[in-house]
């Protein structure tokens, strides 16, 4: 029987923060979000900061518990069968996140051990995977703190791919990168799509990136998924020519609009 790669039904996540001594302020980071992804598909979720993109990625990564609804990865319940799901998923986030004094090779070894890769396997695989992401082999024993942001993000991609995930969660992987590094990372994501049996969920606020890389594009706004369709269908539905215009048509705001106090609070919470 064929099972969807990702199946999310009415997913809810509410964060609360203390306000004063007795009160807690609650904000819905995700509000009854539902969607499915098929195996091998690349889906991009667009949204401003604080829209709930990272919350969605963290829920699917088993780092958060939902307040309602359900999420399944290849048929396994993300919250009840977390350890099984963890074997299937890996991610790249906006921050490269490494032990800065350790080298790229040491950081990759550490990550790989948690996925059952022994020393002989990592000695063979780490140089191979670093070469594939375009990381200079002679720099693999340098401390991460000596590497540029673009280089660090390549190591982050290598870390995610080293464990052969069948679901790859990319949370703004090119944010903050210079144009050349951004292009290299995007090229590599295309290569993963073409050569591997990976399903990719790409969360980004770069509309061009979403349009170029994804089969379908979704818009998450203030915790609600407003649409998730192929770009052509989105443009047709709102009778517009660009995704920016579609965002305006769907929300009544421009993508760069100033945020309200509510949005800023949601950004901090999420």
């Amino acid at each position: 029987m064929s099972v969807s790669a990702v199946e999310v039904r009415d997913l809810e996540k509410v964060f609360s923060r203390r306000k004063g001594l007795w009160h807690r302020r609650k904000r819905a980071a995700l509000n009854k979000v539902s969607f499915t992804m098929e195996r091998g598909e690349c889906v991009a979720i667009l949204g401003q900061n604080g829209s709930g993109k990272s919350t969605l990625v963290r829920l699917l990564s088993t780092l958060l518990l939902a307040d309602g609804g359900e999420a399944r990865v290849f048929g396994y319940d993300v919250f009840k069968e977390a350890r099984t799901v963890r074997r299937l998923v890996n991610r790249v986030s906006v921050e490269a996140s490494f032990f800065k004094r350790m080298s790229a090779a040491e950081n990759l070894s550490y990550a790989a051990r948690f996925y059952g890769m022994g020393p002989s396997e990592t000695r063979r695989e780490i140089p191979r995977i670093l070469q594939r992401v375009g990381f200079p082999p002679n720099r693999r024993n340098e401390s991460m703190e000596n590497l540029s942001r673009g280089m660090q993000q390549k190591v982050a991609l290598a870390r995610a791919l080293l464990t052969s995930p069948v679901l790859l969660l990319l949370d703004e992987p090119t944010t903050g990168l210079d144009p050349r590094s951004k292009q290299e990372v995007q090229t590599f994501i295309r290569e993963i799509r073409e050569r591997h049996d990976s399903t990719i969920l790409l969360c980004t606020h770069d509309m061009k990136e979403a349009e170029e890389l994804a089969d379908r594009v979704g818009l998450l706004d203030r915790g609600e998924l407003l649409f998730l369709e192929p770009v052509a269908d989105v443009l047709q539905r709102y009778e517009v020519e660009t995704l920016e215009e579609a965002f305006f048509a769907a929300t009544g705001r421009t993508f760069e609009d100033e945020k309200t106090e509510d949005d800023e609070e949601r950004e901090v919470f999420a």
Partner: protein
Amino acid sequence: MAVDVTQAFTRRRIIRDELIGLFGVVERNLYLTKRYLLWDLAFLLWTVANTLTIVFIARGVGISPVERNSLETKLLVGGVIWAFLGIIFEIVTETVAWERWEGTIEYTFMAPVSRPVHLIGMGVYAVIYGLVRAALVFFAVVLFIGIHLPHANYGAAIALLAIASISFIGVGMMTAVLPLVSPEKGTQLGFVAQGLMLVVSGVYYPVSVLPDWMQWVAKISPATYALRGNREQILHGAGLAWADVWPLLVIGAFSIPIGLSVFKIGERYAKKRGKLKRSG
């Protein structure tokens, strides 16, 4: 077609993967020690100086040279165990604190290695590293002050510390959860646990000088038996005394499962509240 991980991950494969995960935690800590070696040497110097300030107290007391040597040894054992316990708590607490600071916490906590293996890996490294440091501090102070230890049974002392470490790791797991609950202040609370445990355990004085209720609490503190046993072993060359070993084994048998359960509750709380993420 669905991904059938139940076929790919048999029980044998899972055990193998968990052992590799445990090795990975120890290996990572070795890498970090290597990278921060000069800092570690600076902290070692501080620990030696701190222990000397305690041991020199014996020099100011008007007693015979033999009694002074005995008092210096008792204070030294207290100082070394204080430092050893500090290292265990510090490293086990870093399970969360250091990863949060570096930003790797999300990657580590979404990896498929089980939490007990992860925490025990931290504990194993903490004990190895702590024993090496304790030995260095001990001999540095012995040489500096010129303490005579003709009967010391070092093998038994190390064995007793290793047995006590099971309980220390269990308590350390309970404190390791604190940075998950409070990223800002949680790590410091680990030091509170260390201080509370030692104050009731007779770190620089006999337990008998404590108020009755503290003496009762001392009975469930693993440090009480480690301190008592180590003093006998270093001063009089005693072996592993069953009177010290069995309470440590019993406390260890309770503290590890309790520590794991407390951590599990803390992790669940952090996942519910969204605290399982990098800070800064």
